[in-house]
């Protein structure tokens, strides 16, 4: 559970669908189309005839900004030009802010000729939400940050329109009231739809109508229970440049179906050191220790399991890691760290049962890959769990070193790395 970026496509659809609950005269209809690698473009046209009638904009929609600077936005184009753009850019590898990735998703919307560019953003802080507005929006907003005005909405009492009026300059003329109403509505939309960050930069007003041109948004994925309907059918994309491996997707899926927590990020599939750490706090410390000892290049994965997962869940989690770590060989052999702090309530014996099942199953591959296993854990039923591991080492004839709370939590790391 965390803050998650969403596509501009989804943000604009949500805006068009939900903002009218708070604002009477929103003319913005949310004419947006998302094209992915498997999208049937002709079908999209059939469903959105405006694509053929209007002048268009197309841009990548993959959670990265500064798309204009990278020359990735095509403005004021007709449908043929958009198709040409797609043919040229779909799947293309680009580097954005040091991250290399493939362009896979594009947003197409009507082109809106405009003069004024306004900036509005809402950001969550501890006991209030900060609302920012500037009449100098667009790419130069950061340069003109001194022109950005800020209002605070109290987390409990909210904000009155007076406080919002104060950040909308009087020289906006007849459009001023419209902007005030829009920002007031936008804030309610932000609160009710589970946003933690929302930026429209820029929006403009043409013919008395507010048009969002560019949107960036993050949601709190813990709001899903309350916001499922307002979120339409959006899904959370991976950050740019990160395509989840099938194994990461599998664990993510497993995680979504349980009350416990199962996390896996592959850092380096050829890495020598694999970790299976219990606990969100402890897992970070193990990774720290491996890196502290200068072995960050050997670290193959980050992951954690916690919240008392059952035997079956730990079995699947372990099997996934064992499968990954025994695909390639390393002349120095491989290391598996089964670590964790002293659990409060997770039953160590029963989680270890699932781990043992997987280790048994992968016995031959573990031997082939010359895997050495180091275990350190404490908590309910830990003696039984550790005993199980020790006897497993003998049974499978695999080196398994086993320690309990008497040993400092991360001492197995230097031990395993031979430091």
């Amino acid at each position, binding site marked *: 559970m965390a803050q998650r970026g969403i596509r501009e496509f989804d943000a604009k659809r949500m805006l068009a669908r939900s903002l009218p609950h708070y604002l009477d005269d929103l003319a913005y209809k949310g004419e947006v189309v998302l094209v992915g690698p498997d999208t049937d473009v002709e079908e999209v046209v059939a469903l959105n005839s405006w694509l053929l009638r209007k002048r268009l904009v197309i841009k990548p929609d993959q959670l990265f900004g500064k798309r204009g600077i990278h020359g990735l936005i095509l403005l004021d184009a007709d449908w043929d030009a958009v198709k040409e753009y797609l043919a040229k850019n779909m799947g293309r590898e680009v580097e954005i802010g040091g991250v290399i990735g493939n362009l896979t998703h594009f947003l197409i919307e009507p082109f809106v000729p405009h003069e004024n560019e306004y900036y509005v953003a809402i950001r969550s802080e501890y006991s209030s939400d900060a609302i920012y507005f500037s009449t100098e929006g667009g790419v130069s907003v950061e340069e003109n940050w001194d022109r950005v005005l800020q209002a605070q909405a109290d987390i409990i009492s909210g904000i009155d329109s007076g406080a919002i009026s104060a950040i909308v300059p009087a020289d906006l003329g007849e459009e001023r009231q419209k902007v005030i109403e829009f920002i007031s509505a936008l804030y309610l939309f932000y609160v009710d739809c589970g946003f933690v960050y929302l930026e429209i930069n820029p929006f403009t007003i043409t013919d008395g109508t507010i048009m969002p041109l560019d949107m960036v948004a993050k949601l709190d994925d813990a709001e899903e229970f309350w916001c499922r309907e307002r979120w339409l059918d959006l899904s959370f994309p991976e950050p740019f440049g990160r395509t989840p491996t099938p194994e990461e997707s599998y664990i993510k899926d497993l995680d979504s179906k349980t009350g416990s927590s199962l996390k896996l990020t592959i850092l380096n599939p050829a890495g020598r050191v694999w970790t299976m750490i219990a606990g969100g706090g402890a897992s970070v410390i193990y990774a720290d220790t491996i890196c502290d000892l200068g072995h960050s290049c050997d670290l193959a994965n980050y992951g954690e399991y916690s919240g008392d997962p059952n035997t079956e869940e730990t079995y699947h989690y372990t099997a996934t890691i064992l499968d990954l770590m025994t695909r390639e060989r390393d002349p120095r052999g491989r290391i598996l760290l089964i670590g964790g702090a002293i659990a409060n309530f997770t039953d160590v014996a029963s989680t270890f049962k699932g781990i043992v099942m997987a280790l048994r199953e992968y016995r031959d591959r573990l031997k082939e890959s010359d895997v050495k296993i180091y275990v350190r854990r404490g*908590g309910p039923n830990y003696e039984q769990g550790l005993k199980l591991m020790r006897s497993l080492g003998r049974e499978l004839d695999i080196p398994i070193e086993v320690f309990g709370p008497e040993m400092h939590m991360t001492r197995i790391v230097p031990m395993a790395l031979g430091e």
Partner: protein
Amino acid sequence: MRMEYELFNRETTAFVYGFQVNAIQRMLDFDYICLRNTPSIAAIINPNQSGTHKAFWGAEEILLPMYRTIAEASADHSEVEVMVNFASHRSAFDTTMEALKQESIHTVAVIAEGVPERQARIMATTARKLGKTVIGPATVGGLVAGAFRIGNTAGTIENIVASRLYRPGCVGFVSKSGGMLNEAFNIISRNSNGIFEGIAVGGDRYPGSTMLDHILRFEANPKIALIACLGELGGEDEYRIVEALKKGRIRKPLVAWVTGTCASVLPASVQFGHAGAKADTQRETAFSKNEALREAGAHVPTSFDDYGEMIRQVYQELMDKGLAKDVEEPEVPTIPVDYSKALASGMIRRPTTFICTISDDRGEELLYANKTISEVIEEGLGIGGAIGLLWFKKQLPDYAARFIELVLQITADHGPAVSGAHNAIVASCAGKDLISSLASGLLTIGPRFGGAIDDAAREFKRAYETDLSPEEFVVEMKRKGINIPGIGHRIKSVKNPDVRVQILVDYARRNFATTELLDYAQQVERLTTAKKGNLILNVDGCIGVLFLDLMSSCHLFSKEEIDQVVRLGYLNGLFALGRTIGLIGHILDQKRLGARLYRHPTEDITYMLPSRDGI
């Protein structure tokens, strides 16, 4: 009396929201080994059920009151200042806000993970405005050594004893991670005189109370000499500690470490296990935070590996200055081992109250006697075979199993007018449910209706085995004034034989190795029908004698077993089982027809009351 800087002490009592049986017992066990005078749980709040909950206090049992709502619990227990909230992430917000509304409650610990950030921020801000404290969400809680424990904090009693949490030391500890809290208790107990208080604020981005909130309480608490904290990359919390250090608001030695130093060498997008553990700016990295803390005067080790060593050094300095001293260990009462745990580990044994010799549902597959249910089906044992396994614990030969099924089919029904069916129908018409109506019919089975099979078997067997000739048997029964059970029918006679009896007899003659008792019964029948045409061997009698012949035929039963079958009423069981089929049929028939309440017509009853004078 609770001091301003304390959240919990040895007098603190709490509500536990959510029926968390294990956590409740763990809190009470902690209280017990801390030699608290009273349990730390005043009541349980369970939206599904009110009443009481029985839990252990040492070896004794106590009752804890259970309420459906926070308001009811608070009204009855105005002394309670704490709520340990186990509500799920969906209801954690509403329940916490309601608890904060109660004047008497000053601290709520929220255990749930996945509480939305906005909800967490509202809880935190509300608590702050009211001068109250929220710990969590997404935490195990915390504890004050020797005084009060939130829920599952510090795990098992063995661990609490190992980390000496049953009595106060002088270290105040706070972390984000609940998992690391327990590890820290271990580290601190190995490197100092132990924990005074330890709190995990939770790994979310917006904890209800921050690490600094607790550090400032530790600073104010004269019993705490050393403060330790374990932060994490992401967020600004550690900078608030830095500010407080710089402003001199923290004067006690502070050992601090911020985890997540690895993030700088890992891909930027790794989301660590905790929702808040992601550095969005250089300032939020573990490295920057550790540097800032070190600069501000905290004792910052070079890595987590040296965290314990740093605590040891600082503690030693405090000892040298006379600001800390080792604690004299009190005697710790032992908590009896839980029965289930002891049994599982083979430490204890106990004679059982019940024995079962016919079936077992504990393993992977249900067993009837020695057969798995899939074998029962695959081998086609049928109803007769299943009865063989469950009543006799034997795999009967096929002809015997089929004979049982024959009996069941023949006895399944005998029309609506017989007394069992009649009673079932009347009950059903009175609106009783299926089971009650069935019971009404079954309860009619007895010596005059359907219950003669055992008696018939018993009498014929006795006569045959004591070598009474059929004539002697008839004479003896006549002399005793007893009708021979299994002989006689209201309607059927020699001239109008009972087809059911003929079917049974034919089957037996074709399949049984011996029918000696049937032969004997038929000799008796010849004598009785000579006197009166309807004194035939009836269905009950026929089933009774044939079952005994069957048992003799198949050589699976010892003499003792056969005696037992007759003595224990197995054979009436056959009738009850068979007739159940028909009774259910009649009951369902009435229900389908929507039959109305039956009232017997008065003209069918002769009313013969005593006269007024006669009384």
